[in-house]
């Protein structure tokens, strides 16, 4: 069973038991607001593929703060109703083809943001405040299309010094991939602290890891700084090379050829279908 974040145990008492990747995917309800980091920031591509296999529907994705490969395949597989993000891109491999096709076809709603605004909305949720201010943004059409963002006089500035106030955003589910979990469900993810902020801000954090190791990272002064406490982690599943084709710190690099092939195949519905059958459902590719 999943270890519930808030029902953890006193230090040293309750070992964490990983759940299966498929069980983790099944725990994400259709329609959930699901936050995903992009390709340079520990995405759980393994969980995205499990969500596709599990037939997830109506997901509302949040890019933290932008979106990449995992978002594009979820859109292509018809799992997604809405995307809030600051950009969707496959990096060197170019535009995200399934995102672009779905936007044009009107099958997804796209809500544009800008990177620091997404960080700020998550920080507000992390801090438990209803909003946080952010400089910039004024004069951008992004702001003009966000009725949920408020422009207000800065009470500490001269008259006319207006500033944007962004509402706290608490995703129902956050998912990312980390290097390792320990016996108590603490997760080590190194310097990618945007995932820590995300876990703090979210109602449920689901983490895939390369491996589970003995011990308690919080008791090790060298590992603790890159650790997210189990307090914030609802469940851990082992998924070796679970970030691929994205990179995982110094564990493995970005698989540019894989993404380039995807970008090429996913230009058409048929090509994406063929790619998905092979890569997600493990069918032998047609000759």
């Amino acid at each position, binding site marked *: 069973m999943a270890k519930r974040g808030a029902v953890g145990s006193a230090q040293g*008492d309750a070992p964490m038991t990983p759940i299966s990747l498929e069980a983790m995917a099944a725990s994400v309800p259709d329609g959930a607001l699901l936050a995903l980091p992009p390709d340079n920031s520990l995405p759980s591509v393994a969980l995205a593929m499990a969500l596709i296999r599990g037939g997830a529907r109506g997901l509302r994705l949040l890019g933290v703060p932008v979106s990449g490969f995992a978002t594009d395949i979820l859109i292509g597989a018809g799992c997604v109703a809405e995307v809030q993000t600051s950009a969707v891109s496959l990096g060197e491999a170019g535009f995200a083809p399934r995102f672009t096709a779905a936007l044009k076809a009107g099958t997804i709603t796209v809500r544009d943001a800008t990177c620091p605004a997404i960080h700020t909305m998550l920080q507000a949720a992390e801090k438990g405040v209803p909003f946080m201010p952010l400089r910039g943004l004024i004069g951008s059409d992004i702001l003009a299309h966000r009725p949920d963002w408020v422009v207000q006089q800065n009470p500490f500035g001269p008259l006319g010094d207006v500033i944007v106030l962004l509402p706290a955003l608490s995703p129902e589910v956050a998912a990312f991939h980390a290097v390792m979990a320990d016996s108590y469900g603490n997760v080590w993810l190194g310097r990618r602290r945007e995932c820590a902020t995300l876990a703090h801000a979210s109602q449920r954090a689901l983490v895939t890891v390369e491996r589970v190791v003995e011990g308690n990272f919080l008791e090790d002064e060298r590992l603790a700084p890159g650790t997210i406490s189990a*307090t914030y982690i609802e469940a851990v599943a082992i998924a070796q090379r679970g970030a691929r084709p994205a990179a995982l710190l110094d564990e493995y690099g970005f698989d540019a050829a894989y993404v380039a092939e995807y970008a090429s195949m996913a230009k058409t519905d048929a090509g994406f279908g063929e790619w998905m059958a092979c890569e997600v459902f493990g069918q032998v590719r047609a000759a």
Partner: protein
Amino acid sequence: MTPADVTAPGPSSGPGFAPEELLAVTLARLILDPTARPARHIAVGAASPIPAAACWLVAKLGHPVRLSLLHKRSGNPFTEGTRELFDLTGQGRIDLFFLGGGQIDGQANLNLIGTGDWPGMGVRFPGSFGSAFMYPMAHRTILFREEHSPRVLVQRVAHVSAPGVSPPGVFRRGHAQALVTGKCVFAFDPVAARFTLASLHPGETVHSIRAATGFDFDAGAAPQTAPPGDAELALLRGPVCDEMAETYPEFCGRIWGRGQAA
């Protein structure tokens, strides 16, 4: 080390338990109050061995509870620095916190600033720490102060570090559940903003409590504070003491005759 003869409890030396053990067990029972929101994550602040013992007792009784002990000597539970406790509390993840005060008044206001003119030109206390935030933002708070005297429990605090109740419309997640002292337990009603005597520690009466209390309170038929059971005492003296010896060697030595090296 052997137990210090002067303070160690025993079948032939009075009630069979130390006052600190009664307080720890009393706090543990308040933590487990079935009518309150479950305490799944409890934070324990500075220099609080008795609340810490109560929390460990709850854990050792087998209840699922996460303890964030802020003054654990080796390591600490946080990896975002000292703001993390406050962020956790802001997120609504801290179910229960403990607070005390240089003065506590009948409306459960806390004064950690001092007496006399601001900022404590009479007696200066250390300062408010995080109380002005933790008190309204934790889901519940147990107030704990061993000293029960008119000096500490006053009609009205000289300065409010953290208010016992908040005006309508002001966001507030929780209030004092109870005030536990060396003499009794008070329950707090945030609607009436008033304490009610809930139980009397051994040797106390409603009259003795009134004499030692600077604020007015309601008193019905207050029972005796239930004494610790054998199982609770065994856990306190064994596994709870084991967990606490590193952080609170002085306390463990004084109460249970055990120091850090034990």
